[in-house]
Each structure stands twice: as structure tokens, then as C-alpha cells.
């Protein structure tokens, strides 16, 4: 085992929140005390048996965990290679992996005595998962969402409103996830005394990348046990889609020391890397500082963040969690991309062969599986994180297929 991997769990992040040269605490002074207070609270409660017990109970009875690991036999046969297993995060309450994290942060917010919750959202899954836990706690919830995303994820906007959240469309910049994050940070600066900011991905300033990862590793811990039980061995490869990277790190992290397990993070290739219209900072970006951490970014030669494109709102983000930046540099995980068209094809394929309608985000992981599986043998195992379900994407997919959703007979 290489040295970096042997010490991995001890070293990353370090006590300043650094994953090698990535991560850190790059925020304005007004927020510094808030992120230190959060770090202190998190470090205190993460080992508190009462906190853990409450979280475990919520994850079991409210979220419906453990989520199944499903052997997709039809699809495996059709692709003619590895056996494909799907980790069914789409079956969680609210329809995606996002709720694993919002449950944890909400319990923390309650213990810290905060009376207001804010969040940013791209596809709306994190916004819905946040509005859900806020409804349950009975506290005020404000969700920032890029105006463009409000339009393409109208159904999730309505869900959030039903749950009692206020959804604020963000009109600045590219009107997508990154601008929603800027606006949420501005809100936090202004209302720092009573407000808890539930970040939805493994980005932002320390301790968010570590804390969100810890809440999401339930995916990988369950999957590891489940595959050992059902197949009697570890998988040969893992695949997960990457926007900010929370479902991917949640799956990958418990397998990092298992060096025989290859890992593939799939970014939004948009119209193709060569066109420049994509959302693939790990494949085609460079290191920089944004939203509180140092990581790979989509940026121009002067350090300005450039607009991204992906058919999937949840992947449409110019940065990525700092731990993925480290895993890329040390070569422990591979980062690849698939195009909008390839993801859509996989969306339809899985729907027709397995009767499972995946989210467009997760369809990127599935699309890469269609490339990788045929290069493997039937005794090998490919474990794909099906991070969310596709209900929210009906309008997008229908429109791309030339169908007017409202007019169908």
C-alpha cells in the first residue's frame, strides 16, 4: 500500500481543514467565528452517543435506510461485461442522497440553538431535503436557487414551498448553483447570529467538506457491507457522478484503503470537453480559490470563474469538493466526463431495462458504466451510485425529446 493511502484517514483533512494543498478556510472575517463555532460543535457532537443515536434513528425510520444494493441483472447482461450493482439512494425519503446530510446538519443546528436555516440548491434536491428537515424542526427556512434552475426544476421549487420554505431566485452572474452559493454566503454574513447554513455538498470552508463527507459516508459503509454479504467480495470499481461531489465522496471514502477497488468520478461533460461548454473542473480546470476552499475550478487565465453547462442542474457547478482535488492529484480516484447526450441515453436505457427512472445527475454515472462494463468480465463487479431518482427531471427530458409535457394525449 502506498504511503499516502496508508495514512489517508489520519491525514485528511488536517486540523486547518486542508486536504493536501486543497480545502481550507477562505472566507470573509465576519464568518470566521461562525465556522470555528460550527467546527467546535461538530467535533463535540460527532462522537456524542446521544447525537449519533438520534441520527441513526432518523436515518432508519425517517429516511428509510439502509438503502438497498440492487443487482441490475438485465442491464448487466445487456452491456455484456461486469455485474452491475446499483446503490439505491434514489429510494431515500425526498428522492436522493442529499437528505443523509441535511438530517445531520439539522440536528446540529438544533443543538447550536439556531432559529433559522438557509441553503443553496442547484437541482433542488438539497433544497427539498433542507426544507424537509426544517419543516420537521418547525424552524424558518430560506433556500437560494439560481433563477435559471428555478425554471428548469419548477417541480422541486413547488415542493420546497409546500414544505414551508421561502425560495429566493438568484438573478446575478450565471443564475445557477454558484450564484446561489454566493447569495447564501451573503445571507449568512448578514444573519450570522441566528442562522445555520446547511451546505449541500462537500465544498465550502472547513469544516463543511469534512462534515458533509462524514454524513454521506453512510452510503459507502452500507455498500461495502452489502456487497461483501451478497457477492462475497469487494467490487472491482465504483462509479459516481460529481457536481460538488458529495454522493461520490460518500461512496468512495470507506473504500479508499481498499486499493484493489478502482474509483471513477464522472463530471458533467455538457456538449463535450472540447467545446468548452461543460461542468468538468477536475477533467479540464485548474486549481484556485472559490466559496471558501482551494480546489479545481473552471476559470479563465485571469482567475475569473467561467460559466458552466450541464443538462443536469445538480452538476452545473464550476468547482468541486477539495477532497476530490486531492484524490485526483494522488491518483487514488479517476475523474472522467460524459456528455449530456450520453447521460440522456443512459437515462432511457436504465428506465427501459430495469424499470428505474434515474436522476439526470446519476445518469452521468450510469453512462460511464455503459463504457466501462463491457471492458470487464462477468465475474467482475461494478458498483454504481444511483444518487437520486428522475421524477424532478420529467420536464427536462420531455422537452429534450421534443415533447410538450402539458399537451400529451
Amino acid at each position: 500500500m502506498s504511503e499516502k493511502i496508508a495514512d489517508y484517514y489520519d491525514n485528511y483533512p488536517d486540523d486547518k481543514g486542508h486536504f493536501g494543498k486543497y480545502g481550507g478556510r477562505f472566507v470573509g472575517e465576519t464568518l470566521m467565528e461562525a465556522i470555528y463555532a460550527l467546527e467546535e460543535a461538530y467535533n463535540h457532537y460527532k462522537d456524542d452517543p446521544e447525537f449519533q443515536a438520534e441520527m441513526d434513528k432518523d436515518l432508519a425510520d425517517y429516511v428509510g435506510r439502509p438503502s438497498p444494493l440492487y443487482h441490475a441483472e438485465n442491464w448487466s447482461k445487456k452491456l455484456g461485461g461486469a455485474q452491475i450493482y446499483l446503490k439505491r439512494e434514489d429510494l431515500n425519503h425526498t428522492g436522493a442522497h442529499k437528505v443523509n446530510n441535511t438530517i445531520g446538519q439539522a440536528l446540529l443546528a438544533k443543538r447550536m440553538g439556531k432559529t433559522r436555516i438557509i441553503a443553496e440548491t442547484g437541482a433542488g434536491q438539497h433544497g427539498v431535503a433542507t426544507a424537509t428537515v426544517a419543516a420537521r424542526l418547525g424552524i424558518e427556512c430560506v433556500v437560494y436557487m439560481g433563477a435559471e434552475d428555478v425554471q428548469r426544476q419548477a417541480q422541486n421549487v413547488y415542493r420546497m414551498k409546500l414544505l414551508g420554505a421561502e425560495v429566493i431566485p438568484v438573478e446575478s452572474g450565471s443564475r445557477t448553483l454558484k450564484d446561489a452559493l454566493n447569495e447564501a454566503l451573503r445571507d449568512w454574513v448578514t444573519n450570522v447570529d441566528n442562522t445555520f447554513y446547511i451546505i449541500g455538498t462537500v465544498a465550502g470552508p472547513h469544516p463543511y467538506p469534512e462534515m458533509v463527507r462524514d454524513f454521506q459516508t453512510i452510503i459507502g459503509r452500507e455498500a461495502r457491507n452489502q456487497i461483501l454479504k451478497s457477492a462475497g467480495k469487494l467490487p472491482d470499481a465504483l462509479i459516481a457522478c460529481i457536481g460538488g461531489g458529495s454522493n461520490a465522496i460518500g461512496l468512495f471514502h470507506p473504500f479508499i484503503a481498499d486499493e484493489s477497488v478502482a474509483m471513477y468520478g464522472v463530471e458533467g461533460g455538457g456538449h463535450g470537453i472540447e467545446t468548452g461548454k461543460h461542468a468538468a473542473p477536475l477533467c479540464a480546470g485548474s486549481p484556485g480559490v472559490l466559496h471558501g476552499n482551494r480546489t479545481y475550478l473552471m476559470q479563465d487565465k485571469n482567475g475569473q470563474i467561467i460559466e458552466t453547462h450541464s443538462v443536469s442542474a445538480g452538476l452545473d457547478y464550476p468547482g468541486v469538493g477539495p477532497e476530490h482535488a486531492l484524490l485526483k492529484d494522488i491518483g487514488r480516484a479517476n475523474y472522467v466526463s460524459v456528455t449530456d447526450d450520453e447521460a440522456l441515453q443512459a437515462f432511457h436505457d436504465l428506465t427501459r431495462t430495469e424499470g428505474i427512472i434515474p436522476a439526470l445527475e446519476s445518469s452521468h454515472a450510469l453512462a460511464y458504466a455503459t463504457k466501462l462494463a463491457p471492458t470487464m468480465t462477468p465475474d467482475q463487479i461494478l458498483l454504481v451510485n444511483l444518487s437520486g431518482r428522475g421524477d424532478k427531471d420529467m420536464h427536462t427530458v420531455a422537452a429534450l425529446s421534443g415533447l410538450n409535457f402539458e399537451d400529451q394525449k
Partner: protein
Amino acid sequence: MSRISQCFEKLKADGQTALISYITAGDPEPWVTVPMLHALVDAGANILELGVPFSDPMSDGPVIQKACERALKNNVSIHNVLDMVRQFRERDTTTPIVLMGYTNPLEVMGYETFAQKAQEVGVDGVLTVDLPPEESEQFLPIMDKHKIDTIFLVAPTTTQERMAYIAEHAKGFIYYVSIKGVTGTAVLDVTEVENKTLQLKQITDLPIGVGFGIRNGQSAAAVSKIADAVVVGSTLVRCIEEHAENPEALPAAVAAILAEMRHAINASDMA
């Protein structure tokens, strides 16, 4: 002694409060930035803050956000900003200039390359709002080597212990952010500012500048009683926004606003 320290010493000897102006470089047109800087100095600015435009200005309110968007529409880069400083220095070799902005443009240019060029064109200080002392391990010695003062923010949420930590790393002056919030969104609370400024003065000998929330002569005068410097930003940038279609009028327009502030501060200094 740095140009910033000299400036504060001289003002102190004269019993005057420093007036610091902020505008975003390249907003609304690149050509008008240097004429505006000269006009601001003529109207009574003692130190110039020049904003380096960034696509994602997370600590700024809508006014400065839009200023960044206008500047970026003109493709104003950190290289252009440094060129503007060089041009300004052709006529003014005494007024200190502080570049204010976010970490990423400096990070991508490279700290060393930036510092070398900044020193060469006559930049005196740098304030990167999302680079706290915790993340400045590489940044500080490089700026130091090139004699660029590193200015840090102190906020209403900053504890006394942390103030001392920040003061250890700060050079030139300390910038007290007078409101909990982003730039240009609220009016400051004078009593709160006074308390924090007094706390800071017990910890450091560095001059204290106060900004975020100073809108008019009245608030400028109130702050000048407490602080060593008054920073005016969003009010100037709002004026720039109003005249964005007519940039020829801008040097005179921003000068008029600053002159009112100067007048109010002088009256208060004399009182």
C-alpha cells in the same frame, strides 16, 4: 516606512482623519478609472482603494457586485488594474494605493509575480477579503519582501483574542467592517463601532479604518470622531452606476460626493 504609514503619521500630526475612497477598477469604462482616482485625491481622499473585479464577490452587496460585472464586461483583469496604477503614478507619487479584492485572481497570477509587479507599479497595500491570516502563510512573506502592506479586516463578530491574532499579521492599517453584512446594505451603529474601535486600540498601534455602511457626511463625521480613517465605497459606486452611460461626467460626480464627506470630517476634526 511605507507610504501608508507615512500618510497616517502626517495626518495624525495635523489632527486630521484619513478619508479612504473605494472604486472598482474598470467600472464603468477602463479609461475613466485613472481620471476618477485623480479627482478623488483632489477632492480630499488620502488613500485610494482600487477594487480588483472578481466574478464571484461573495462579501459584497449588489452595488459592488454589479460594478464587478460592468468591469468584467470590459474584460478588466488584474494585469489591467496594475497598469492603471502605473498610469496613476505618472502624476501622483504620494497618495497610497491599496488593491482590494478576492484571492483567486492573485492566486492564479501567482503571489510572487503579483507582488513583484505590484511593487514595481507603485501599489502600497493589498486587502484580500477571503484570505484570512490562517490561509496567508505563503502570502504574507512574499508581500513583505515586496514592501506591500497586508491589510486585514476585523468584523463585529471578531473576538478580542482573534483581534490580537489579526493585528499580529496586519500592516498599514486595520479595516474594521462596521456592520454584520455585505458592503453597502445597512447603516452602521456608531456606539458599536466605538466599542470595537476602542477594543482594537488597546491591542494594536496600527491605525483603524472603518468602512461598510458610511453613506453621507453625517455618518462620515460620526465615525471620524472614533477612527483614524473613514472608508467610503458603495456610495461612490452607486454614483458610478447612475452615470454608467455618461462616464465623462464621473470624475466630477464622484469628487463632489467625496468633497462633501471631506468637508464633514474636517468640520468634525476641528470641533
